[in-house]
């Protein structure tokens, strides 16, 4: 879902971090794409290729995180790669998603941060 437009938003934030740190080259952009985030890692990587000239030395590291949930009936917590709408313990449908539904920027690693120039 909208991997390219999300990437544009993400890379604006990465560029701002670069500027804050004297324009050092980006070595790695680490993101987390939850299984319920709507972001497909392969599509995100493909979209990132378009921006390679702006970040020639950067790799995009995508961690896929499982969905975590908590049952509002029996309070059982669990994680799942595919969303299930009922609690595996008591089989009630009152499931609260507690994680795995976000697309997050985790960290930006700058190369040779003491010197560098903007691309």
């Amino acid at each position, binding site marked *: *879902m*909208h991997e390219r*437009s*999300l990437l544009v*938003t*993400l890379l604006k*934030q990465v560029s701002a*971090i670069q500027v804050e*740190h004297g324009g*050092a080259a980006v*070595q790695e952009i680490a*993101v987390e794409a939850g299984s*319920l*985030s*709507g972001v497909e890692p392969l599509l995100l990587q493909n979209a990132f290729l378009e921006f390679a000239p702006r970040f020639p030395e950067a790799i995009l590291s995508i961690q896929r995180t499982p969905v975590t949930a908590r049952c509002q009936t029996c309070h059982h917590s669990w994680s799942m790669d595919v*969303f299930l*709408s*009922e609690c595996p313990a008591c089989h009630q*449908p*009152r499931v609260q*998603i507690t994680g795995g*539904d*976000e*697309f*997050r*920027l*985790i*960290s*930006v*690693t*700058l*190369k*040779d*941060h*003491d*010197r560098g120039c903007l691309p």
Partner: protein
Amino acid sequence: MSPMKIEVNKPVLHEQQQKAAWLRQSWTAQQTLVVHLVSSPGAGKTSLLEATARFWQNRYRMAVLVGDLATERDAERLSPLAPTQQLTTGGACHLEIDLIEQGWSKFPTTSYDFLFIENVGNLVCPASFDLGEHLRVAMLSVTEGDDKPGKYPKLFRTCQAFIINKADLLPYVPFSVEAATRDALIIQPDLHVMTLCAWRNENIETWCRYLVDQRQQLIDGHA
């Protein structure tokens, strides 16, 4: 020189989410219930808003932000009935908070009891973008099939209400209201489900009463 790792650990859409939360807070303070309608193209969002405006007949102050890829057709239908701003996305398949903020700023007043946001016809992408609403409503028409809630879990999980529209066609289509309701409630047990026919104004009173109740709860909760 060694690499430097800068920890961020924030949602990529953090700024947009903050903006949506801020707008929601200001609407709450103004006692404006914001209702976000999501459906496939042609399920009846605009017809429902027309029916709502006609039912209330200015007893409540309502305004509409309506999103489409192109044309102002929906705004042309709604403007005679309620203050309306057309948000033309020019290609984007869903509304985002920046467009909402822009559209909202164009109303001559902020004193509305209800603000309706009619999203672009799409059951997928709108589920992922917070528009500052208090109430998110999924609409399905009976011609779309009663298996749809399970196929769009993210939308139904993030909604508070589910409207089954075009009930006048039930005798002619293989749609089970019971099956669609059951499917939706598995995903979101707290959904408020209503069946109606917008263009024939059938059961609009139930929908409008639900909205008034929701607004009263908003006011009571904020007091």
